[in-house]
């Protein structure tokens, strides 16, 4: 009975979605003059001299979204900690869920780990030139830490360091925004020279903010993974 109802519901949703998408032809150029996209595509190379338009949108035009998004991650790691928090009772034998990996895996991870870190750093430093940026780079670095945590049972990321990195990066982001507010009248406004298109040092505050975002995302994701991996279970 419930199944029939659900299938009926799905049919209705599917039909209305198909109907709605009929009005949206695929692959059509919908960027007319006057839309925001046209503005972004036109102004980004000249006014910001940032090659990657998406970076420009994410960090500058819609920078407030990114601030909110970073807060969401921050909140998630915090909420995770608060949800999974539990008092340690005495007399309970606790075992970690991870078992030590083989030597091969350990040696391999040790080899790959720096490479992953460098890749992540590259991705977020070049966020304004090539695809990628703070989120991607941060996530890549977090996978690097994940690898280490899985390979070495005792590999611990210091929570203090994570917290400092996270807070400092957050303060850097907000601080740059406030400096923009003071120098150029509006929050997160660009106040540095914009440089030349496709140079590493171009785009004013955009690369700086993206690096801060990268550090913050990396710290937050590592924190989330660390919390989850360190769940102890009663044996």
């Amino acid at each position, binding site marked *: 009975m*419930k*199944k029939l109802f*659900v299938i009926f*519901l*799905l049919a209705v*949703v*599917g039909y209305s*979605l*198909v109907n709605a*998408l009929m009005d*949206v*032809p*695929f*692959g*059509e*150029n*919908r*960027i007319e003059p006057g839309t*925001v*996209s046209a503005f*972004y*595509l036109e102004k*980004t*190379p000249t006014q910001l001299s*940032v*090659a*990657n*338009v*998406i970076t420009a*949108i*994410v960090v500058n035009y*819609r920078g407030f*979204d*990114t601030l909110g*998004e970073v807060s*969401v*991650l921050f*909140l*998630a790691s915090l*909420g*995770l900690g608060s*949800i*999974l928090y539990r008092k340690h009772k005495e007399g309970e034998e606790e075992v970690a869920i991870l078992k030590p990996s083989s030597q091969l895996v350990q040696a391999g991870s040790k080899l790959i780990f720096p490479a992953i870190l460098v890749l992540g750093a590259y991705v977020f430093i070049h966020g304004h*030139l*090539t*695809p990628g940026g703070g*989120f991607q780079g941060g996530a890549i670095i977090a996978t690097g830490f994940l690898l280490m945590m899985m390979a070495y049972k005792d590999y611990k990321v210091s929570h203090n360091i994570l917290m400092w990195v996270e807070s400092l990066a957050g303060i850097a982001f907000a601080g740059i925004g406030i400096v923009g507010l003071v120098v150029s009248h509006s929050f997160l406004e660009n106040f540095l020279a914009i440089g030349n*298109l*496709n140079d590493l040092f171009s785009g004013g505050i955009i690369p700086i903010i993206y690096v801060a975002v990268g550090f913050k*995302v990396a710290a937050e994701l590592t924190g*989330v993974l660390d919390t*989850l991996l360190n*769940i102890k279970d009663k044996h």
Partner: protein
Amino acid sequence: MDIDYNQLMSIGVYGSAIGLILIGLYAVLIKKHLTKIVIGLSIIDAGIHLLFIAIGYIKDGTAPIFSPGGLKALENGQPMVDPVPQALVLTAIVIGFAVTAVALSLVIRLYRHHQTARIDQIKSLKW
């Protein structure tokens, strides 16, 4: 050969987006296992992200990056695809991950209390 490849692509992309949304919805509504429900949620999210990118795509377009390659493509008359949906999806993916993580931590909490993760065996509150 006069197959409209754009048409074909549109069927593939829109079809999979709608399919993902519907399949995810089915999982959320029917399945009883909490982890399965969260999987369903993440499938719905994936479908919506695909839809975002699909509406921003422009036939024969190039990525909205003014790198040397991108500039060359622009000179060849290729349009740049719409950057706004891509920027939004970036945000949406990260938010989706955050929500998934919180959901799964709640699943772990529930499992600790009930020793089961099936809705029909957790009956302390009315569903």
